[in-house]
């Protein structure tokens, strides 16, 4: 029976590698009896398991999106070249996931902001609605709470209106009561076609998204921590209004709604004939209460990121900001300087010399990675590890997740020689593949430099972090000399890459801290 099919939740453990929780006999025995209510103990299911059950219910029963583009392997996997260009089809040997379902779910878990892009009718809004239902809201409430972007949308439409009686009676502006819109208090917020919202209204949305409060007539409404889902038919500025950059920057991850695979038309037919809407059939045992959402968030934050994995991210992120021709002073040699100056990027980038532009991934972008993007990356990789039931973040988690976070953050320079090669031309349109390729190149470079084995800047940083208390002048001078020697060894090379730029700045920072300390020691003595 089709209804029963929709009620079915994947059996635990959904990822057998993760540990199962032990259950003690207690008063819960009260609820065992003639009626089989195994689900009565659903609350005893670890929340990461519940999250996986929710994922598998959505991919198996709700969203027909048979794309396993987040690939994990356990051992060797099989690969098959297809087509004239020999495009590779890989059959992953580990549990792999569909980004269109997984990313919104991780967004729900970490209460982030997710942009779903893709053509009309690809299930973007439906996917967002499922997240609202997952948070325990009635389907009608979720649908009513969707903010539908349209050119006439006003701030009042979005936030609320002053009470008419107060407008007449009030002696001062703070006496005007506001009828806030109900959606502001929800833990899942959905903005449909956000690129059709007028620019002025976008600005009020920005305050809400960035600072989590709404403001009208000097009155503010603090909103609960929420997961945001924004949809857009065209991410490349094809909406009615240009999306303000600050708003775009607030979006944490971008997911593409892929096409409908016509091999699954039969499933669509079954749903039509049975009159079934999956979002109305979501099993209760995968719904998350507010307390459970808080708990999931806490548990995700506690997932550790090993130093080796963090170092790879540092190395990757450090390669994008450096721009040799941007400034005279070393600290300002950044792409940000170029952007703020308004100078044509082509003019600057063509002046870059001395580097292999095919190998330098920094040459492929027009900007660097922001702090917000890095924080989002850290949170999402933790969430990914949590979702997989792992005890700590794995390098593969970082590799798989980073393209979705940086999708709209890294601005590609399509004129970079890297994209001229036939093998790389497709990366001009495939941003996910492009960012993942850059990460792979970064890791290859990291391995070539043997930084896991020999990273003098890391050694100096660790030494410094032990503290300056009790350090004698002789030792301080010795460390300063070591910094100077290292800088001298680099100064002869003509090839100066982004990661070295960050290293040099770090060395300068350490040298300055030691200099200040040395001055203080001299004064003290």
């Amino acid at each position, binding site marked *: *029976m089709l*209804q029963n099919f929709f*009620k079915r939740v994947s059996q635990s453990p959904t990822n057998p590698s993760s540990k199962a929780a032990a259950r*003690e006999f*207690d*008063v*819960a025995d*009260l*609820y*065992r*009896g*003639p*009626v*089989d*209510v195994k*689900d*009565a103990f*659903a*609350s005893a299911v670890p929340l990461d398991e519940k999250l996986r059950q929710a994922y598998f219910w959505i991919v198996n029963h709700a969203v027909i999106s048979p794309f396993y583009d987040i690939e994990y392997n356990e051992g060797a996997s099989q690969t098959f070249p297809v087509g004239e260009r020999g495009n590779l089809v890989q059959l992953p040997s580990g549990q792999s996931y569909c980004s269109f379902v997984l990313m919104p779910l991780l967004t729900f878990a970490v209460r982030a902001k997710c942009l779903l892009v893709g053509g009309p009718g690809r299930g973007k809004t439906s996917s967002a609605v499922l997240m609202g239902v997952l948070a*325990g809201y*009635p*389907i*009608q409430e979720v649908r009513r709470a969707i903010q539908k972007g349209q050119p006439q949308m006003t701030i009042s439409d979005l936030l609320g209106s002053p009470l008419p009686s107060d407008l007449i009676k009030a002696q001062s502006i703070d006496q005007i009561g506001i009828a806030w819109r109900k959606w502001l208090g929800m833990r899942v917020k959905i903005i449909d076609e956000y690129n059709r919202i007028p620019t002025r209204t976008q600005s009020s949305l920005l305050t809400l998204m960035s600072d989590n409060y709404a403001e009208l007539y000097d009155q503010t409404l603090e909103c609960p921590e929420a997961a945001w889902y924004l949809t857009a038919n065209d991410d490349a500025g094809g909406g009615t209004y240009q999306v303000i950059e600050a708003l775009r920057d607030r979006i944490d991850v971008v997911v593409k709604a892929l096409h409908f695979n016509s091999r699954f038309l039969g499933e669509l037919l079954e749903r039509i004939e049975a009159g079934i809407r999956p979002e*109305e*059939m979501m099993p*209760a*045992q995968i*719904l998350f*209460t507010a*307390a459970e959402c808080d708990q999931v968030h806490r548990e995700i934050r506690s997932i550790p990121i090993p130093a080796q994995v963090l170092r790879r991210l540092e190395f990757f992120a450090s390669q994008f900001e450096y721009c040799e021709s941007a400034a005279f002073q070393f600290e300002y040699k950044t792409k940000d300087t170029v952007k703020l100056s308004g100078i044509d990027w082509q003019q600057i980038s063509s002046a870059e010399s001395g580097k292999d532009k095919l190998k330098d991934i920094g040459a492929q972008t027009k900007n660097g990675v922001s702090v917000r993007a890095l924080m989002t990356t850290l949170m999402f990789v933790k969430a990914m590890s949590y979702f997989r039931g792992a005890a700590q973040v794995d390098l593969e988690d970082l590799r798989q997740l980073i393209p979705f976070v940086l999708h709209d953050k890294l601005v590609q320079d399509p004129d970079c020689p890297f994209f001229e090669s036939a093998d790389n031309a497709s990366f001009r349109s495939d941003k996910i593949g492009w960012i993942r390729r850059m990460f792979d190149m970064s890791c290859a470079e990291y391995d070539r430099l043997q930084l896991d084995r020999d990273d003098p800047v890391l050694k100096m940083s660790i030494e410094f972090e032990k503290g300056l208390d009790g350090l004698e002048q002789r030792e301080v001078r010795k460390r300063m000399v070591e910094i100077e020697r290292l800088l001298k060894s680099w100064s002869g090379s003509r090839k100066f890459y982004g990661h070295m730029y960050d290293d040099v700045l770090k060395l300068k920072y350490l040298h300055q801290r030691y200099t200040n300390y040395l001055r203080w020691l001299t004064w003290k003595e």
Partner: protein
Amino acid sequence: MFEDQRDALNALFRSRIKQGAKIDSQAFAEHIRTRIVPCVEAISLVLPERTRLSTLELFEVSLDLFMVGHFENESKTPHLYRLWSEHLPKLAKHLACDPRRVAGSLSNALIKIEMQSSHTAERWLSHVETAAQYTESVDELLNLGKAAAWLSGMPHYRTSAIAAMRLLPKSLILRLLEMPLDLNEPDIHTSLEKMVVDPWYSILGSNSSDAMQVRQVGHCGAFVGFGGEMRKPPVVTANEGMLVASDGQHVWQIFADRFGAVTQRIDLSPFHENKIQKKTDPRLTTGGLIRWGESQLKRPDLANASSSAFDGGTFAVTIPTSFQVVLFAQTAPLAHSVIPAVKTVATPGVGA
């Protein structure tokens, strides 16, 4: 309302009959009309989109119950009838979220509680009815049910029920304990912790040594012919910190606290030993005087007791002419307990 699901529901009913279930179709139709329909109607007002799923699940849960003979005779499980006809419709908010879990769990619980005592079932329903409206989720409701079971007179669940209670919001705990909501109780959780350790700890009453006196706090055990468990007048002893009673054929562990006293059968060798604790406190004299530190209690009806035992908190006494075990503790008056002692603690019926 069931029109569009008629085929599915009929198929479900037929599949159960095929499995060999003997279900009176007329009684089931009456059950649908008087119990399922009110629930579904209530759900349709709260979460209309869950009506279809809820109908299906309530139908299945009902079949589960009919298959094992419930709903056949109202006098057999009167509280189950009340749960479905009066209480479940009021829980539509939770029922809509997870019909099988809510209806199934509460039905299972009520069947189990009713097997222990009709009074306990009555109290449990009353607790659930009073506090359920303040619960926010199904988990909260079920934790409330667990806590209510203990408060209704199931002391064997005390530790785990308190653990479930600690998951509830403070206001709900206060409602369950029938304490004022504005009670200046700095840490209700600390009190709950004390109740785990000390079965006679009183939240509202004084726990100072001045207020402590030896008092009768309950009784348990009854003649098998009157619906009890004992075939012969029992004797008691203390075994590894537990109070146990035996009628010579079977052994039961005695659980007692401020909210009730029960026996639970355990797998131990039966015993006939008749020991009276006369040398250490608490002690019982041949004349029926209980001495416990500075406090004492005269109970002539317990003169010539057949056995007594102490587990560190509760003092159990039996006499040769009764099927009951009488329980004493050094505690503040039970009138301060949440459930008035008079409901759970009757004057022990000495003599069968």
